[in-house]
């Protein structure tokens, strides 16, 4: 199993969720994050004080998938989240040793 972590533009959430759903992923967990990267920020000005804001609002999506669903999930996210402009985000993949469903105690792929 893999744990896919994608950092995306906030307004793409619904599209990504739908795309993942079509790719067979039925659960995911979303976190509001701030991202720093190539995408340029903006300046804010409060009376005399000017600040450059480099950290931009992004959403982080985590979803655990089976090895089989993995490729499809990656493609789904990429397709749904891309706009082609700097700042579209990244996907990180790590190996998942174990998954457990708290309610039932099921483990492994059954728990997804």
């Amino acid at each position, binding site marked *: 199993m893999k744990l896919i972590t994608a950092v995306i533009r906030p307004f793409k959430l619904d599209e990504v969720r739908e795309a993942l759903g079509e790719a067979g992923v039925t659960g995911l967990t979303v976190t509001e994050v701030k991202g720093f990267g190539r995408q340029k920020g903006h300046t*804010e000005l409060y009376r005399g004080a000017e600040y450059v804001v480099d950290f931009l609002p992004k959403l982080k999506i985590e979803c655990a998938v089976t090895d089989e669903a993995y490729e499809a999930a990656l493609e789904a996210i990429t397709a749904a989240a891309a706009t082609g402009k700097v700042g579209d985000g990244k996907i990180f993949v790590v190996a998942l040793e174990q998954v457990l469903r708290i309610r039932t105690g099921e483990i492994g792929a059954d728990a997804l």
Partner: protein
Amino acid sequence: MNSIQTRGWTTRMQAAGLPLSCALALLGVSTGALAQAPDAAAPAFDSGNVAWMLTSTLLVLLMVVPGLALFYGGMVRAKNVLSVLVQVLVVFSVVILLWVAYGYSAAFTGGNAFFGSFTDKAFLRGITPDSDADGLPELLFVVFQSTFAGITAALVVGAFAERIKFCAVLLFTVLWVTFAYLPMVHMVWSGEDGFLAHKGVIDFAGGTVVHINAGIAGLVGAYFVGKRLGYGREAIKPHSVPFTFIGASLLWVGWFGFNAGSALAADASAALAMINTMVATAAGVVAWSLVEAISKGRPSALGAASGAVAGLVGVTPAAGSVGPIGALAIGLAAGAVCVWGVNGLKRLLRADDTADVFGVHAVGGIVGAILTGVFSDASLGGTGLDVSIGAQVWAQTFSVLFTIAWCAVVTTLAILLTRAVVGLRVSEEDERQGLDIVSHGESAYEK
């Protein structure tokens, strides 16, 4: 006793021409109108009436900032809340200056049935602290009325919030106030010769002048500005219903200045307007909540707050002439009908009127205007009509239709001109990022 100075001022005005005198006036030069101390043989104004009108004036300000600003600001997304607050505040301020410059003059001096004179009392010339307007200091009447102009213009901005350019709002406001608001005031409130006053319309505190007028402008504006990105697909929720609630509450509180202040005195008529406003608003809250509870299963906070505003809008034209039970009926009707205004009717109209300026202010205003013709009748608890209920309802309906037509035309022209000169909408990317950062360089909240 100010006549010589005033006349001298007049002469200089005429010699210099308006533009120059405006500039001079702004620089504070050559405005000799107030030369006498107010207490030198001043007329005795009734202190109780003055006290109430001072209070009423600040109450209407309270309705705008923070009232209306929060009411609208809570309904938009967090990335646009400051843009709404700025728009409301700056629009109001610009209109106050415009009112002093030529608005008061154009609304309340002689002229024809549609407009007063743009110059007679421009920059309030000739008005001293002692000037009397029906028993009140004229300056007090000027400032009280200035807040009405300001709030009406501010009401409109709720309709195209979250995507409009700030400069477009300002240009549109100046055009719209000049050609839609000022003539409406003149037609209804400037005296017997005003076009709609002459038709016999009853509009105590501004059902047509303020609410229908603003509501129609909002609807037409929303059409031209177009829908928000993601409208109907993404979840576009109010970012702070408590702010909207605070706003609605302050609208209610301030509206007593609006309605009872329109009696222009602290008398029995103001007392009547007071209780009517209280009862109609409570009825609006109950009606909206009830309709929501029945039709959707759950009465909401946004609904209850909206019901209060609907009740307030409904009773505005009626406050001085119906009885408390009439006010109750109007509040119930306005509350119930406006639920439809922001649901069924809104879907029908297919405009993205962000804060439902049309659905609440125009719809509630129309309900109120027409029912005013009914419940003002003595047989229904009102203070009495000069004509039959039927005739009065027709006068009210005519005024409503006329207001809609006039306002729709002016709004269309004003918005087309604005679009031509500065454009209406920010870019798609800017809209995504939010107007607060893009147009105003700030974020509303920081943790």
